[in-house]
């Protein structure tokens, strides 16, 4: 029998409900794996193993008494540490929120708990979600389980690494410019950024709220479908959320027309391109057509993204003024300007840079030159993509233009770092769904393929991914750790 810590989520649910093992045994196995692996990988900021075992015992009791345990009964999940969890510290990997304990659960957390998922702890990220390697975490960098000298991607690096390393069966991340897909690609797991509005953002601590979505990271398409259906839905507490049709595992798929984005292939590393071309042959093998397409406005996408994201960040992070949350300073007398500036000195460098750029692009004299232009580009890009989606069901390309790289390689040059997001920001700007699927390795380093679809067409993503998963057989767990 498969080891308990290697089971996929749907296998855990089946095994538990059929009485093959107990939730307590399964969670204990996961905890033992964390003890072995965590000193090397550093996925977690906060672990709640006592809480997890206690939840496991409740699940076991419910199963024994034949009560409904929910669709994710007993499955261990790690939560990116920018998603609010009641009673569990939520830091956004920042010193500013080092002691912040939310008094409420994010809507997605409530949905997971109602369905029996077991929260293991909070996973590492780049501070406030700003970054692509998890190196900007103010706690510690997370390491790529496939090569511990390499970054796991970001900003949901803890989520990608934890799932790859078997420290939890599934995880939640958030994606503003690629922050689910990048670590999924670098860690050889599956990650989905849903259509903007499919999943409630209530409880997601904002970085750029017109761009970001919470999404699942896991090791099988079937697990992804389970998770997505549970966290999707219109929420009265998030007025940008919308109702959507549940996704199903396909029994057979219709022929899909697939476009491979020329600019993304020609501009990526050769080893990445090779694997993507090979994956595109698999796309044809599953009965889809595949031809090259071009996106005219692509080269404006990244500058537009960084303008908009920084502008929104400068506004969203203005709330960190040490009034409602922050540090325990003595009450006594301060000067108005210096009080706030002193507190906010505790942001990390990258967060400061983005706030400053945001202030710049929103300021008088520059607003029309940068921010309004970026908004315009966003509309143009979306129109262009919607036009392409009239002819093509899916658009594919490499998730990341390069292989996972070594720590410190890009951290001294912000532009070099920003350029790694070049393939992923398109989906955030246009609000469309995008998945990263592992497609192979080059010198032991994972490569992911990104598949995008029209708004609320996640079913087409799932159809293709489910079939591709069967024909692209890759190991889902590094044996080295």
């Amino acid at each position, binding site marked *: 029998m498969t080891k308990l810590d290697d089971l996929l989520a749907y296998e855990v649910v089946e095994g538990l409900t059929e009485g093959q093992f107990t939730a307590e045994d399964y969670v204990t196995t996961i905890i033992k794996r964390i003890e072995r692996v965590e000193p090397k990988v550093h996925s977690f900021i906060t672990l709640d193993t006592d809480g997890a075992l206690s939840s496991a015992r409740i699940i076991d009791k419910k199963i024994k008494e034949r009560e409904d345990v929910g669709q994710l009964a007993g499955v261990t999940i790690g939560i990116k540490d920018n998603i609010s969890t009641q009673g569990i510290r939520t830091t956004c990997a920042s010193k500013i929120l080092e002691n912040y304990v939310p008094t409420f659960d994010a809507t997605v957390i409530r949905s997971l708990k109602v369905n029996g998922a077991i929260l293991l702890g909070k996973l590492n990220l780049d501070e406030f979600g700003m970054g692509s390697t998890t190196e900007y975490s103010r706690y510690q960098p997370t390491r790529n389980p496939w090569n511990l000298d390499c970054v796991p991607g970001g900003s949901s690096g803890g989520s990608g690494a934890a799932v790859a390393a078997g420290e939890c069966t599934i995880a939640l991340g958030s994606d503003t410019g690629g922050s689910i897909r990048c670590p999924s690609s670098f860690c050889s797991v599956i990650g989905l950024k849903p*259509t903007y509005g499919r999943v409630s953002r209530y409880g997601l601590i904002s970085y750029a709220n*017109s761009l970001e979505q919470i999404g699942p990271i896991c090791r099988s398409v079937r697990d992804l479908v389970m998770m997505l259906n549970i966290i999707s839905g219109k929420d009265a507490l998030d007025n940008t959320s919308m109702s959507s049709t549940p996704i199903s595992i396909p029994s057979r798929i219709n022929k899909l027309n697939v476009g491979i984005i020329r600019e993304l292939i020609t501009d990526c590393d050769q080893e990445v391109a090779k694997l993507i071309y090979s994956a595109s042959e698999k796309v044809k093998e599953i009965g889809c057509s595949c031809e090259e397409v071009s996106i005219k406005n692509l080269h404006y996408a990244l*500058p537009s993204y*960084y303008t908009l994201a920084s502008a929104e960040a400068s506004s969203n992070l203005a709330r960190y003024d040490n*009034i409602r949350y922050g540090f325990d300073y003595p009450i006594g007398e301060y000067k108005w300007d210096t009080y706030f*500036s002193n507190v*906010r000195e505790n942001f990390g460098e990258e967060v400061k840079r983005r706030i400053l750029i945001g*202030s710049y692009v929103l300021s008088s004299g520059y607003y029309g030159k940068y921010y309004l232009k*970026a908004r315009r580009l966003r*509309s143009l890009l979306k129109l262009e993509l919607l036009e392409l989606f009239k002819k093509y069901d899916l658009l594919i390309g490499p998730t990341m233009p390069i292989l996972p790289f070594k720590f410190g390689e890009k951290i001294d040059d912000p532009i070099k770092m920003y350029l790694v997001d070049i393939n992923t920001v398109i989906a955030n700007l246009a609000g469309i769904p995008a998945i990263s699927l592992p497609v192979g390795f080059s010198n032991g380093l994972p490569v992911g393929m990104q598949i995008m679809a029209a708004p609320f067409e996640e079913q087409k993503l799932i159809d293709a991914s489910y079939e591709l998963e069967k024909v692209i057989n890759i190991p889902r767990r590094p044996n080295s750790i």
Partner: protein
Amino acid sequence: MISKEDLEHLAQISRINLTENELEKFPTQLEKTIEYIDILEQIASDDSVTLDLHELEFEELRKDEIRISDEKQLGKNITEDGFLRGPKMK
């Protein structure tokens, strides 16, 4: 060109103190970022409608009624009579 004075102005309006190290390296780094986003100038200005991200569903708005929130949700520094205590300013 981002001068040290420009940077200090941005830091002031953002209410962020910068360390000596940051004051040293940020001008060049921010300038490179601004040079990078300068390409947006090539996009034509256009007064026509900016596409909404998606068509929001506006069902009936809720009634204009007072709902009592849990004061604990305001976080720390809540006084006994339900006020939020802030720092004392000179």
